[in-house]
């Protein structure tokens, strides 16, 4: 871990970065914000960890728990809501056995997240599967896509 963190700190000093850019680098390196990483950085920079966690919990970009290998984001914008995104979301959580109140399955294979709007409203309902925007989604197609991902593993 130290090696990665040293590199992040190097970047911080070189590009006159700030607490937020450090967190962005951590998120990029680990896929989430490990508590341990924040504590180490905070000791090295003499900035209280609470400042980092305050920022990390404020923005939707940061995650405090490990995320799944495949990330499925369901758009919850107005047009998608009108066209039934909630049904897709509920079905996904059921299909992937995601515990209530969580967004990642226990085997860390899938994360199901929500986003306010991805700005592809002409194609609602929209689901983003591993950064690929997929429009005019239906429950049946969603299940097909999941099976494709499962077949990859």
């Amino acid at each position: 871990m130290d090696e990665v963190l040293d590199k992040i700190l190097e970047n911080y000093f070189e590009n006159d970065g700030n607490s937020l850019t450090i967190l962005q680098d951590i998120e990029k390196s680990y896929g989430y914000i490990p508590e341990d990483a924040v504590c180490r950085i905070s000791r090295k920079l003499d900035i209280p960890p609470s400042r980092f966690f305050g920022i990390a919990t404020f923005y939707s970009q940061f995650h405090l728990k490990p995320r799944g290998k495949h990330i499925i984001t369901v758009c919850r914008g107005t047009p998608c809501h009108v066209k039934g995104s909630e049904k897709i979301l509920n079905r996904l959580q059921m299909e992937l056995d995601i515990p209530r109140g969580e967004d990642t399955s226990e085997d860390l294979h899938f994360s199901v997240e929500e986003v306010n709007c991805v700005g592809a409203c002409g194609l609602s309902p929209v689901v983003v599967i591993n950064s690929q925007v997929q429009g005019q989604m239906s429950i049946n197609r969603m299940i097909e896509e999941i099976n494709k991902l499962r077949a990859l593993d």
Partner: protein
Amino acid sequence: MDKKDIVIKVCSGTGSLSAGGKDVLEAFRSLAASTGTQAEFRDRCTAHQVGCRGFCSRDVLVDVIINGEKITYELIKPDMVPRIFEEHILQGDPVDEWMAGEQHREFHAAQTKIVLSHCGEMDPESLDAYLASGGYEAAHQAFVRMTPGEIIEEIKRSALRGRGGAGFPTGLKWEFAGRMRSKEKYVVCNGNESDPGAFADRCIIEGDPHSVIEGMMICARAIGAERGYIYVRDSYALAVKRLGLALRQCREHGFLGSNVFDSGFDLDIRLYPAPGAFICGEATALMKSIEGKRAMPSPRMWRTAEKGLWGRPTVINNVETLANVPRILGRGAEWFAGVGTENSGGTKVFSLTGKVKNTGLVEIPMGVTLREVIYGIGGGMVEDRAFKGIQLGGPTGGCLSEAFLDSRVDYESLALAGTIMGSGGMVVLDETSCIVDTARFFLDITQAESCGKCTPCRLGLRRMFEILQRITNGHGRNGDIELLEDLGSHIRATSLCGFGMTAPNPVLTTIRYFRDEYAVHIKDRKCPALVCKNLLTYSCIQENCTGCGLCKKVCPSDAIRGTRKKSHKIDQDLCVKCGSCFDACKFDAVLRE
């Protein structure tokens, strides 16, 4: 057959890419590069990507232009490409059945494209294409031939106003920042478009990133800034990618860096991927975010143009505002002012969505009526159902009723009606949309996105949301409407930033214009639009039921009883109101009320 110039343009916005636009482009490219084509046309047959043209529901859209004559195809899939190539391009005989029809013409006919003029026409990843259309001439002029005073004067005369929502005159903002004496000044492009249902900024950046950069360069020159930030939502992956590429191209060509255009001025523009929070669209919160802090708005003791980023004079302009700037310098302030109304020049881009036939990105001159947008460009209501209302300006905007269909779309008229221009979301509602449910939906977003600094906004919005929730669940109480009004007006009056001041809008405007619908939900426990699940009942119409048993099969809670070929019954105690039987019944025998 000789001397034919053939250009193939394939849409490449987020919408198109998800519909397979990349494969369509590749298919055209490989056919254009094939030996047969090369032998016949040499290099006069080219296929390239263009930015989004706003009509994403018909993607993939393809233009085939032969000697300047354009034919547009819609809903194209890669396997359709060879036939278009063979019949249209080689034999000169367009494929009629795939051509975009009346709907496409209607959608574009009533629009005036200024900001979106490049989108759908040129390759957004090519600097050469932008230069060929006169790109960076306005910036060159601003750096080499004009004084900052002249630029500001020109922008002021154009009557350009901030497209982020509040509509502050852009020229005036630049003047405030220009007057300040400071060694460091900043120009920031606000691309934190987070309104659900708004995607204008995303399309502009994806389709024409250089216009935004050029607008920033002109602003930087006018106010004397040497550093700029483009603050764009991290979840707009394609926009972030194209902006990064465009910035690199500019640096390589010397449009950015030291001694821009040999004018002696330095300018560096950096991309700042926004970490994602609705509130970051607010100016003071956005600056906190760039400074690396929690994005909580602060009291506006000074204008940001006077004391902004790190306490230095900072101009924050919206993506669309900046994209207008090169056009104003290029074609003149008078022309621009002539397009809009007296108080606001130019056009505004709206994201038209909801229950209209044509949804997508539309650009209209300021001052056009809502009726013209909905029934002209939008092609009217889906299935010709009755118009009910229109939500303008995103989740902090307001919902207008039919009485306002003839009101004009400009800052003053909309404010008078109780809503805002906002970021340009237009969600059209019809008789099958429930007003209370819509208000609840918006409050659900705003109560979660409140930054938490001011109590009225943090707790008040939450309470309003809970009241709306109980109304839509059938537990509304007498006095709830008055309570919502009271809470809403207090939140409006006592919040620090524009977010809290506008967040109660959806509730307050819907109560103002659709009070009866709230009353029916509370007193009669009914939802006239048949949307609120807990207020519905499903029953079987005995005369229509043939006893086919389909409903029984789809019911997830075994609530339907009956023997085959005899009419069925729905057990209200077991019914979970999912509506599966209603959707499945082929004989209209399920009554939903």
